[in-house]
């Protein structure tokens, strides 16, 4: 046993396990309070107070919700494909959790679970797997609203994945690495323009050719997480509740969990790619400050997500597809070219 403890590989694995456990636990808490935050913010946006009955300021509301969901009746519709019906909610959560393993949440090695050199690709791969949960969930329910919702959502996700992937390419062009840690490292320090140090951090978003990609990425994130104004798969007015119409109890909760986890993941990626990751004042002196900075940026973005959801109306389906294919995709392609030419010129100037 002692020998095992001495084994370096085992230690790495063990530490990774510990980190994964912490992340999982924290994540569940974060998600439940994210839901609370959403309801609270929504309430204030709509000039209400939001949940305020359970506990002080309604802070215990999430726990009550979880309890309710756990004790609800599991309902499986007749004619449903049972296996797939069970697998789908799991698939909704799994990719988000996997992606978290490569996100650097603070200075290494403490705050990084693992740093593989194709981290960004892993994120893209996992987000492309997100389609399965919705498609399969919609299909296996044997319900036409669910099926339509599922198909809509997968078409939407596939479409916006392209623009999202393309909008990351200028970042890669600048940093020259697929590793997320590498990308964060490339954003350290102050911004320089033609050898002049500017009073701005060297974040991706402050490079002019990464500004448009950031917005494209942001818009695509809304679509990828099926949030307003792109929440067509769950458009209540048209499709009842979309792909999870037939889901109830914990399976429904898993879908819900998956949605919010995806939101957290995608915001983390955005922070990593464009907002300097965990970099911020004082990190070099006190490493855990990196985690604070990271979470600050993350929560700011999450707030923005919620804010947008309760502000904008939903798009029509053809508008959604048209916007994705005819505006975002060409814009990101053009931006890739401009960035490539610019960087090539800078490199050779």
């Amino acid at each position, binding site marked *: 046993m002692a020998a095992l403890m001495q084994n370096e590989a085992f230690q790495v694995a063990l530490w990774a396990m510990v980190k994964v456990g912490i992340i999982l636990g924290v994540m569940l808490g974060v998600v439940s309070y994210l839901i609370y935050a959403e309801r609270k913010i929504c309430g204030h946006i709509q000039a209400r107070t939001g949940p305020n009955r359970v506990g002080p300021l309604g802070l215990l509301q999430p726990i009550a919700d979880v309890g309710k969901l756990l004790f609800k009746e599991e309902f499986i519709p007749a004619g449903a494909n049972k296996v797939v019906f069970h697998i789908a909610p799991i698939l909704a959560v799994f990719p988000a959790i996997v992606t978290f393993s490569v996100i650097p949440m603070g200075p290494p090695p403490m705050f990084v679970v693992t740093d593989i050199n194709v981290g960004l690709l892993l994120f893209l*791969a996992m987000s492309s797997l997100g389609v399965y949960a919705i*498609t*399969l969930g919609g299909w296996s329910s044997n319900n036409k609203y669910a099926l339509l919702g599922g198909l809509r959502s997968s078409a939407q996700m596939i479409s916006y994945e392209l623009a999202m992937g393309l909008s990351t390419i200028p970042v890669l062009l600048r940093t020259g690495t697929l*590793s997320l840690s590498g990308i964060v490292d490339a954003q350290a320090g102050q911004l320089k323009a033609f050898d002049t140090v500017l009073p701005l951090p060297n974040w991706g978003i402050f490079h002019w050719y990464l500004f448009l990609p950031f917005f494209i990425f942001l818009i695509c994130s809304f679509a990828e997480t099926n949030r307003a104004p792109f929440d067509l798969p769950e458009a209540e007015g048209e499709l009842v509740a979309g792909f999870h119409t037939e889901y109830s109890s914990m399976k429904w909760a898993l879908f819900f969990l998956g949605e919010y986890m995806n939101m957290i993941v995608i915001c983390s990626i955005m922070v990593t790619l464009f907002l300097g990751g965990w970099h911020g004042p004082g990190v070099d002196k006190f490493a855990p400050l990196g985690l604070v900075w990271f979470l600050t940026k993350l929560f700011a973005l999450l707030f923005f997500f919620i804010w947008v959801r309760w502000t904008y109306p939903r798009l029509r389906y053809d508008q959604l597809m048209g916007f994705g294919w005819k505006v975002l995709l060409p814009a990101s392609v053009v931006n890739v070219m401009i960035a490539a030419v610019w960087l090539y010129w800078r490199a050779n100037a």
Partner: protein
Amino acid sequence: MVPYLFLGFAAMLLATALMVILHKHPVTSALFLVLSFSSLAGIYLLLQAEFVGMVQIIVYAGAIMVLFLFVIMYLNLPHDVEKGAQIAVRRGIGWMVGALMLLFAGLLAKKGWVAGPAATAPADLSGGNAAAIGRVLYSRFLFPFEITSILLLVAMVGAIVMAKGRPASPEGEGE
């Protein structure tokens, strides 16, 4: 540790691949295929081909198999009914051919038909697997790469043309 991981992935790969061809429902087959592609991606990672492994998931699991699922759902296919003497004969022949193939492959392997000596001069791997692949792809394989893009364009046009179907003819054929 790596060999055990490899064996695990290999076992999963073969099991899921077998399920693909054995299971009677196309959707299940497709899902098993996704799984087997994912385990294949794991094997690629173990073989120091990280880029290929990730692309394997993005392309196969993220795009190709979604397309398969779409089509299966669109056609609303039920369980395959595989009964009757003819199909039994088919199945017999098929498995026999498969067994023979494996047997022959094993015999060839016994004759020393296996991987030759390892290369002495390793490729330039600086900057990681993806960067190295990029260097080769955009220099030595630039022309095939461009041709591939044309192939994709052609396939896209072909798929769209076929999916649109023929305009309804006066006799009411087609749609």
